[in-house]
């Protein structure tokens, strides 16, 4: 689970108001508006497609028995076969993935993964016709932008996933900004519409980090933007710091190693200004100003 990719995204309950300059009239919906309840128990779904997008794999499945998720919610995934079924070694626990895309008109669920460990390797082996176990949708999804602000989506690597579905669900957002390590990974930028891209090695788009683009995009519009970000810990921390500096509200879709995804294991706690919270229940999206740092112990190694 150290290698666990991409558990991310759900909005922070606004019940605990934070220091933000959020307008008093902010029409923040109740927490239930961002959480679709999950059917009890894991269910088997059929993999219907597998596509390569640069260094990443898009896994598509048909979730006939599940409700439509909110943007930013996540699922616990495990292959139905050869996944700790009693005799195997790793992988053993399911892995958390933000949903990449879930069109309202059908039962499709898309996930994005990168082969970085035993769990993602096994998931990457799945082919159409194979079965996947899912539990979800889980966690709290993104909350809409505060009044008079437009969404700016900022993503990095495999963490672009929840931004794609959020872009689908938002009526209006500014041009997304995505960062990748290199050109091969940047090939996944096409999963998000009309994005500006930065690469660490300069092999595609802007040579530098995505927060460079963010500063350009925000300059002079600090009061009109709300940032939605998901990506590796170093990127999220850079985004958090820029937003804190410029007093811009931000919702960060975070990742933490999780055994269960539904509050049972108490393993995915993250430090917030108000103490440890279970990311699977109170997140995975947290308001950036709830955090001292987005560099969470045990992630991104």
């Amino acid at each position, binding site marked *: 689970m150290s290698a666990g990719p991409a558990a991310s995204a759900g909005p922070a309950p606004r019940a605990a108001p934070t220091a933000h300059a959020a307008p008093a009239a902010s029409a923040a919906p109740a927490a239930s508006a961002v959480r679709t309840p999950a059917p009890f128990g894991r269910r088997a779904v059929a993999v219907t497609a597998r596509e390569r997008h640069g260094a990443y794999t898009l896994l598509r499945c048909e979730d006939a028995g599940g409700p439509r998720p909110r943007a930013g919610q996540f699922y616990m995934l495990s292959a139905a076969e050869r996944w700790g079924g009693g005799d195997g070694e790793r992988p053993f626990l399911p892995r958390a993935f933000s949903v990449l895309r879930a069109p309202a008109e059908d039962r499709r669920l898309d996930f994005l993964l990168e082969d970085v460990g035993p769990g993602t390797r096994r998931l990457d082996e799945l082919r159409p016709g194979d079965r996947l176990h899912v539990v979800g949708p889980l966690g709290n999804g993104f909350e809409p932008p505060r009044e008079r602000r437009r969404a700016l989506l900022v993503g990095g690597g495999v963490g672009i996933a929840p931004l794609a579905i959020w872009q689908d669900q938002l009526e209006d957002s500014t041009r997304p900004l995505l960062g990748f390590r290199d050109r091969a990974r940047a090939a996944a930028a096409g999963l998000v519409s009309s994005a500006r891209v930065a690469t660490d090695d300069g092999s595609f788009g802007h040579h530098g980090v995505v927060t460079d683009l963010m500063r350009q995009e925000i300059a002079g519009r600090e009061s009109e933007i709300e940032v939605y970000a998901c990506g590796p810990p170093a990127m999220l921390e850079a985004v958090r710091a820029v937003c804190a500096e410029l007093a811009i509200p931000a919702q960060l879709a975070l990742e933490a190693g999780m055994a269960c995804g*539904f509050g*049972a294991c108490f*393993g995915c*706690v993250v430090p917030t200004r108000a103490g440890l919270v279970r990311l699977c229940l109170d997140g995975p999206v947290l308001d950036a100003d709830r955090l001292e740092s987005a560099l969470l112990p045990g992630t991104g190694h």
Partner: protein
Amino acid sequence: MTVELCGIALEHPVINASGTFDAIAARRVFGAELIERFPFAAFVSKTVTLAPRQGNPPPRLWETGSGLINSIGLPTKGLEGYLGEDLPELAELPVPLIVNVMGFTPAEVGELIRAFADRPEVTALELNVSCPNVETGLVMGADPRELSALLERVRPLTDKPLIVKLSPNATDVPAVARAAERAGASAVSLINTLRGMALHPRSGAPWLGGGGGGVSGPAVRSVALAQVYAVAEAVEIPVIGMGGVQRGQDALDLLRAGATLVAVGTENFRDPAAASRITAELSALHGNSAPELT
């Protein structure tokens, strides 16, 4: 598959291990369906201590071959928070409630037991004795004399069944179980997690925020079976067996080793409804006249 434990009638012999299922959180996630399809014949709540505890710093989890090492550190709202916030919600569950408590001195354990002694919502108490007695430095559940002294003091405080959760990290677990029985325990449950640790793959420092942790899952199943077998031979009181139960066959093994009930722990993390599947598999095996191992 109805079964009785210390006079408590249960619909089937499968319950949860303490600390592996948060029914309140699960109700928030799964809604009313959790209650309609509640998978356990009784519900054991997470360890309550007198004072609130934040638990260990993250990271708290490490996946190991066929198992999990956790270093959660018993986060709890403490007795007051549990009584005020959690107990009313847990009382709505459709099954008997067993409250797991832990104290750092015998006096603390006594205070916890008194707090639940007359609560009608609570069917039984389970004592977590896997922590050191801060007055003696000895782990209460690892030493027969420590455990006897504790139970002789707290047993008279309630008429409710007292289940002692045994630590597997003891030199002679059956001796501890016999001490519990002689001192008035109504039942024993085992195994708790085995001590383990993992190192950061690059730095070599301990990975878990708490340093070491407890190993659970299929990796400990054979250890659990051996300890349940040995303890069931050593005592007359009922035994609740747990450790790596994933399938009906694993539950059947523990019952054949002498357990009255079986608890599901880590498998709940892989599938919140796992206990229902395990119960159905166990039922099918019971129905088979020759349930040979497969």
